[in-house]
């Protein structure tokens, strides 16, 4: 929308010749005015409204729930749209709770049928896509429509993998042409407020998927009215409505029709010893959202983010950039702020719900499966040697402030199945042991295979490579045999992984939900390339255990299976894993919040409040 010219006011006096520069500036101002914000009353920046300015390190490109593959998109989308379930604001470990649903689903005895009731009286925001521009009530049919969209190629969906082959009839519905007039057998709106999902086999993670942005409810009228531009003109029933969205920021206003649901902080998992410093008691009994305006700035540049955060009147939340660690922290273990910063900011550390790891691609005969069984055994020794030569501690110190958490295997600390007592042999740096394994396998500098180290083109990636090459040199792997292959973009390296073009894949994985199944599936045989098992690991015992556990509800027995699978991966030296990074989150003292950038993600923003009084008053809250 173009800015109304009168928004920019400038008085130009004097002879025209002398006013050339002023005129040029005025014209520039006129064409560059941000008219969209200014045309709405919510855009007022008066001090009597509550504004929170959050920041993220990246920007979403689409706000359509079917395209929320990136964490940034998912973070933003759950504020504009409603999902059936969400996570308790304060509970750790993470726990699900009903959001648009009235309660957790009724699950049939055979674990195949889920019945979910929606809250009545919930409305979409007012939008020209609706008759008379008034948002209509959200119904069960909207949920059915929203999930079906993932099976309609014209929507360019990204979330079908969550439900394909699991919800009965969806694959067939797609094969028949994705006709929304046709029903899908396993996805029905029984009445205005009741959804029934029928599964082909038990899927205990289903409820988690209904808390993801992918499953957010959208109105068909708006999707059809805006077409592909629905991705930038979201119409949902979430706590906020979007005023503007561009590459630099997204601006929300409170959704005035959002349902009134007072917060019970004890139900939300409030833990006074660890959380009282945030002041969250002050939202108890009040109905969110508490903000009149929410702004999320997308700031990839650490220096700009830090300058803006410390300015005082700009962004009010930021992760601590690596380069500021020594300036800001008093100590790293435990993480504490220096006095001057502790006086101004709240701080908490958050362990990511995910991890970084590097896997061998078993399809490469030089490192993985080989028709020659003797060579295959030697390859295993080679992989184990490389793992022993990998110095996690140094990687942590060099690039993650020394505060990341290194753990054995692929079950990260963020999930309940994590085993803190597991042996740390697989993550212990042992160059002597590595050399012994190479010798045992008959590997010499002459016969070691060339290892192509694929990475995205960036300075940090290059440093990772050089560090790895140095470690390999120590164990006797010639540096000239560790060859860097750079890819211009993440999309390019993703293509290489999907096409099984690289023998050695270093990547990060952020959990979609707090269940180890989400990481163990990374090594499940049928998920091989182009699927997420780009290690192309295929072990009948592992696959059988995965299939057995995948239909089980959480239980000690399932946990034992998960841990057994984890051990198999460690024994086979498939992956060098892993490390969960720790983020240091800082926010201004007048903000009442418990930020979370992992599983709770964007859901926490509805609970953020601003102490509009004297900033000194906020400090006394502690």
């Amino acid at each position, binding site marked *: 929308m*173009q800015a109304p010219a009168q*928004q*920019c*006011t*400038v008085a130009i006096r004097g002879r025209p010749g002398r006013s050339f*520069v002023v005129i*040029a*500036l*005025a014209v*520039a*101002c*006129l*064409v*560059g*005015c*941000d008219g969209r*914000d*200014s045309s709405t009353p919510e855009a007022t*920046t008066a001090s009597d409204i509550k504004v929170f300015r959050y920041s993220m390190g990246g920007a979403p*490109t*689409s706000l*359509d729930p079917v*395209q929320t*593959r990136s964490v940034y998109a998912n973070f933003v989308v759950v504020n504009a749209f409603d999902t059936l379930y969400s996570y308790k604001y304060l509970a750790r470990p993470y726990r699900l709770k009903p959001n648009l649903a009235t309660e957790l689903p009724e699950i049939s005895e055979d674990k195949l049928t889920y019945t979910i009731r929606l809250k009545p009286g919930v409305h979409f925001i007012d939008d020209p896509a609706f008759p008379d521009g008034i948002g209509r009530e959200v119904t069960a049919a909207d949920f059915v429509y929203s999930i079906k969209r993932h099976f309609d*190629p014209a929507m*360019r969906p*990204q*979330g*079908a993998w969550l439900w394909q082959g699991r919800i009965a009839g969806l694959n067939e519905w797609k094969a028949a042409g994705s006709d929304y007039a046709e029903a899908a057998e396993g996805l029905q709106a029984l009445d205005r407020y009741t959804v029934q999902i029928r599964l082909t086999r038990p899927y205990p993670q289903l409820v988690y998927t209904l808390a993801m942005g992918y499953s957010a409810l959208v109105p068909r009228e708006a999707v059809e009215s805006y*077409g592909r*531009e*629905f*991705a*930038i003109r979201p119409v949902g029933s979430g706590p906020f409505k979007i005023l503007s969205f*561009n*590459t*630099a*920021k997204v601006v929300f206003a409170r959704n005035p029709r959002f349902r009134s649901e007072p917060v019970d902080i004890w139900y939300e998992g409030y833990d006074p010893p660890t959380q009282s410093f945030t002041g969250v008691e002050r939202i108890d009994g009040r109905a969110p959202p508490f903000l009149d305006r929410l702004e999320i*700035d997308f*700031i*990839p540049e650490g*220096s*700009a983010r830090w*300058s*803006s955060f*410390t*300015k005082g009147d*700009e962004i009010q939340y930021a992760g601590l950039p690596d380069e500021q660690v020594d300036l800001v922290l008093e100590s790293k273990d435990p993480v504490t702020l220096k006095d001057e910063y502790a006086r101004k900011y709240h701080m908490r550390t958050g362990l990511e719900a995910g991890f970084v790891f590097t896997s061998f691609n078993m399809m490469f005969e030089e490192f993985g499966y080989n028709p020659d069984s003797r060579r295959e055994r030697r390859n295993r020794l080679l992989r184990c040697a490389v793992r022993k030569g990998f110095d996690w501690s140094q990687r942590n110190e060099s690039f993650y402030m020394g505060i990341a958490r290194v753990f054995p295997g692929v079950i990260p600390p963020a999930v309940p199945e994590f085993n803190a007592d597991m042996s740390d042999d697989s993550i212990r740096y042992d160059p002597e042991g590595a050399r012994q394994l190479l010798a045992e396998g008959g590997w010499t500098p002459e016969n070691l295979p060339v290892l192509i180290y694929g990475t995205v083109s960036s300075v940090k990636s290059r440093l990772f490579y050089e560090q790895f090459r140095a470690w390999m040199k120590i164990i006797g792997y010639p540096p000239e045999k560790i060859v860097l292959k750079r890819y*211009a*973009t*993440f*999309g*390019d390296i993703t*293509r290489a992984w*999907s096409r099984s073009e690289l023998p050695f894949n270093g990547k990060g994985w952020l959990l979609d939900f707090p269940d180890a199944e989400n990481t163990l*599936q990374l090594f499940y045989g049928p*998920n091989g390339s*182009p*699927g*997420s098992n780009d290690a192309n690991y295929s072990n009948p015992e592992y696959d059988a255990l995965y299939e057995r556990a995948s239909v089980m509800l959480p239980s000690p027995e399932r946990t034992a299976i998960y841990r057994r699978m984890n051990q198999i991966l460690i024994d086979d030296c498939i992956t060098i894993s892993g490390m969960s990074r720790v983020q240091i989150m800082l926010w201004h003292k007048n903000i009442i919040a418990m930020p979370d950038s992992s599983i709770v993600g964007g859901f926490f923003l509805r609970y953020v409040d601003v102490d509009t009084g004297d900033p000194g008053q906020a400090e006394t809250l502690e």
Partner: protein
Amino acid sequence: MEILQYSVRKLIAGIPLVLGVTFISFLLMVYFGPDKTYELLGKNPTPEQIEEVRRELGYDQPFLTRYALYVQEIATLNFGSSESSGELVSSLLARTIPVSIALITPGFVLGNLLGVLFALIAAYHRGSWADKFIMGASAVGMSISFLIAIIAFQIIFSSNFGLGLFPVRGWNVHSFGDYLSYVTVPTLATVFVALGYNTRFYRAVIVEEMTRDHVRTAKAFGTPPARLFYKNILKNSMIPIITRVVFSIPFVVISGSLLIESYFGIPGVGKVTFDAITSGDQPVLKAVVGLTAALFVLAQLLTDILYRAVDPRVSLT
């Protein structure tokens, strides 16, 4: 009439240029650019899903068919929707180009005006301390990377560690006052870096003009220095100055300034273009390339007309 005829001829002659530029650019996009497919796919894609996305993106079509479609899009100025955001490319450019123009114009204008001014001073005092100081300062400006200049100016003028006078980032412009507050630091950074290049270039042009016979003759006739500079030197130096200024305009309009927009959080076309390049958003790239090529043709035409305006010896035939 002469100008109109010339313009029509020149615009027609520019068509092969636009076609050539777009063809080569499209070739690079298709065969060397990023593959958007894998950014649009979800986790655990099946080969069928990969094919579906490739079909949606038109990747399954032969190159020449796709290029013919591109030419049609240029002719109709309809580039469809961005593959990333779904926004109509025309809306996207209409939204972001004005912001970039507003952002870059002050720096562009001031950088050139001050460049000419300092070049005149340096040339007039050639060999003196003033000349050496200006040239030295220019070399310093040229030697400092734009990125460092941006960060330094941001810290000095915007952050709490410096003067804290201006916003660190953002573009919340509702009045001329807002505009000045958001554009000042980016402009200072732009001018700081551009001034060195401009001053050295313009000084060289002016010094060359100062050594010409007609200038020496005018001096001998006692022409006052101001008149000598304005009428005999500056006017005759305008040809290279016009060339430099006018040919920079397409970059100002289309490219914006990626670094400025990124570091100051300004939603201009520079960031959009950069994102399109790195993500392989071909509809946006096609529009940007096509528009840039067309603007260059127009810039060429404008340059010729301005040549004629400042130098009557130039003929538009």
